[in-house]
């Protein structure tokens, strides 16, 4: 046990809290989207401040650790990874707030057909499960779980690629509902972005535990096989 361990535990605790908070923001966005729940959407917007506060707290934790303890090896990698993870989570929070903002701005309930065609239910479920996986992976330093994220992100990317044509098809079919269709299209885009950011988190977990740098590489595909 070193003097640094309590600081690292506190940092991990803040990270896990931020993951849980951002995850719950996304869950609320899902419910608000499917049920046209304006109050829930407003709650997401107001809770964004807590996401930002945690981001700042993690920045401070990392700054203190670096200044006071000169961490090396795995401890250093954890601090560096934490800085990046909190940055990604803050941006996921921004995306959740963005989705809530869209819901508030365009108050029309999405039809089941539109939700189904955009696969919005599945996209929300996948992003929420990615964040749940990352919460567990950070808590338990589980790189096998972290690696599962890459396949899930592929699903989101595939759906995002199809969203253009789906949006065109729906606009032709329902020309009076352009605003609603574009709202749903924007949500798809934001969820795809959330997937990319969650994938970054997986890469940082692997960097922390295994000292492997996966970003910009296709290594995760080989490991998956």
């Amino acid at each position: 046990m070193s003097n640094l361990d309590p600081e690292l535990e506190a940092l991990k605790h803040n990270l896990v809290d931020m993951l849980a908070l951002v995850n719950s923001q996304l869950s609320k966005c899902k419910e608000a989207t499917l049920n046209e729940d304006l109050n829930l959407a407003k709650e997401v917007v107001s809770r964004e401040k807590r996401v930002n506060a945690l981001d700042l707290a993690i920045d401070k934790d990392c700054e203190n650790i670096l200044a006071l303890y000169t961490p090396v090896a795995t401890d250093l990698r954890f601090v560096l990874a934490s800085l990046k993870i909190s940055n990604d989570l803050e941006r996921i929070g921004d995306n959740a707030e963005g989705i809530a903002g869209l819901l508030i701005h365009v108050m029309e309930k999405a039809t089941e057909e539109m939700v189904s065609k955009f696969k919005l239910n599945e996209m929300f479920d996948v992003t929420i499960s990615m964040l749940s996986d990352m919460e567990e992976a950070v808590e338990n330093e589980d790189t096998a779980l972290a690696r599962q994220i890459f396949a899930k992100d592929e699903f989101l990317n595939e759906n995002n690629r199809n969203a253009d044509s789906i949006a065109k098809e729906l606009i032709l079919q329902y020309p009076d509902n352009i605003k609603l269709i574009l709202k749903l299209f924007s949500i798809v885009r934001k969820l795809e972005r959330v997937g990319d950011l969650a994938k970054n988190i997986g890469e940082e977990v692997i960097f922390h535990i295994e000292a492997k740098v996966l970003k910009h590489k296709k290594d995760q595909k080989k490991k998956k096989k």
Partner: protein
Amino acid sequence: MNIITTKNVNAYYGDNHVLKDITLEIEQNSVTAFIGPSGCGKSTFLRTLNRMNDYIDGFRKEGDIIIDGSDIYDKSIRVEELRQKVGMVFQKPNPFPKTIFENVAYGLKIQGEKDKSKIAHVVEESLKNSALWDEVKENLNKSALSLSGGQQQRLCIARTLAVQPSIILMDEPASALDPISTAKIEELIAQLKEDYTIVIVTHNMQQASRISDKTAFFYMGDMIEYDKTKDIFTHPKNERTENYITGRFG
């Protein structure tokens, strides 16, 4: 190019087996740090490189130590010449109770150098190369003992440089010094690396990470890991190295 090569070096103090199968190579014009907990053998190993252990009763060595192509334990080797080539700086500054000038000139004089202008030139160059000249040039006839701890240590380095070594061994050279003097010694080591090969034992891991190119971690007589310093301190291969450098033992 490797200037120091050791192969399966084992060392004993009587029955106590203090170094176990140490094999490593040290590149010319590099700084290599030896780290490890007290009693791990790092200073013993350092002293094998210029045979300072020869004076210790009961000391015995096995294996080969090759410096600049020669086995330094071969019978043909003159130890005095070896120690000129492989100089040493100790933890506690140990200037002679002589003037600053005489301290640096001493090695040259006992080698038989009589040319006063040459001696003066070498003294000046050595003091410049140890970053002490500007502080003492007006007082070369003052006693070395009147210098501060940090200055005395740089004087000891100048004394080592005066006899033109190719390798400088340093056994915790800054551990008795204040932070500013330590910083000056570290800056000096970075400069000296251009012309010399330096091997340094240190308990200060931040120092090892700041100044060395490669680091060897010793534990209970074994060399556990030896690698580029940046790799040792970012992702060591051995769990014991990780535990030591993160302060979880030792």
